[in-house]
């Protein structure tokens, strides 16, 4: 991938991320977060994770951020301007972030894989496609796509999810249900007020 594009996307992600952390107006924060997530989604795609990139935009930048915005609007949360930020906390946050970043950077340099580029570990689509077609009796749509040299990301993802993580998917369903019920329980109005 073009170097410049990467840096642009990284800057987009981190820059808007910084906005989230620093902006005073919650709405600004929320919108910045959405933008940051868009950049992130682009980075996902740059890593050949098209499906994940897509749902990152759909779920995060879309649904989740809307929820945030909605709540902010609903509660009519004011700008933090009337209160000064907690200086100790700010300093603490900066120090933590700096130290953490340094630690992670130091360590990632020792990763043997770290200096590889995507082209170093190029995908071998056609080869896999051929093997699949001949050997394991896989889904023809996938092997065909592979043989054609395109990555059927969503299909492969789906295959993994349903074949390998079918049970987990259902647990996630249960989790979402619990979440839903939780939201209902937690935001129910008091009876007296309702009456």
């Amino acid at each position, binding site marked *: 991938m073009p170097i410049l594009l990467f840096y642009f996307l990284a800057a987009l992600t*981190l820059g808007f991320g910084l906005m989230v952390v620093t902006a005073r107006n919650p709405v600004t924060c929320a919108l910045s977060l959405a933008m940051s997530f868009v950049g992130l989604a682009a980075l996902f795609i740059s890593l050949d994770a098209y499906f994940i990139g897509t749902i990152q935009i759909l779920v995060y930048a879309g649904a989740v951020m809307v929820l945030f915005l909605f709540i902010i609007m609903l509660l009519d949360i004011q700008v933090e301007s009337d209160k000064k930020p907690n200086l100790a906390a700010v300093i603490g946050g900066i120090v933590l972030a700096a130290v953490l970043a340094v630690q992670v950077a130091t360590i990632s340099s020792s990763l043997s894989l770290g*200096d590889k580029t995507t082209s170093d570990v190029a995908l071998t689509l056609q080869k896999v496609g051929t093997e699949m077609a001949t050997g394991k009796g896989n889904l023809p749509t996938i092997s065909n796509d592979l043989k054609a040299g395109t990555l059927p990301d969503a299909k492969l993802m789906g295959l993994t999810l349903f074949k390998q993580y079918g049970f987990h998917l259902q647990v996630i369903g249960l989790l979402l249900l619990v979440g839903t019920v939780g939201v209902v329980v937690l935001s129910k109005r008091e009876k007296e007020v309702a009456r």
Partner: protein
Amino acid sequence: MITLNHYLIVSGALFALGLAGVVARRNIIIIYMCLEMMLSAANLTLVAFSRFHMVEGLPDYSAQALVFFTITVAAAEVAVGLAIIVALFRSKQSVEVEAVSKLQG
């Protein structure tokens, strides 16, 4: 060229940024946003690694499945979390961290 390290450093920076926000901000909703940012940073790491740990010439989809679950879980968490925050706002008329400092010692 763009190496894995680039991605890891970006994700690390994003994670650190999120952490800084969590620690520094006083508005609980924004804290929550920063938490989501950290989770996403983790996702980026996972995805980057999944691309570089190929399985039979393809990205490692089990790691991507984990990312998928993370995103979903995050969504559910956001829903519950915002509900709690709303409840907090209703009872305290505030979503600042100072509203929750009664339990201590």
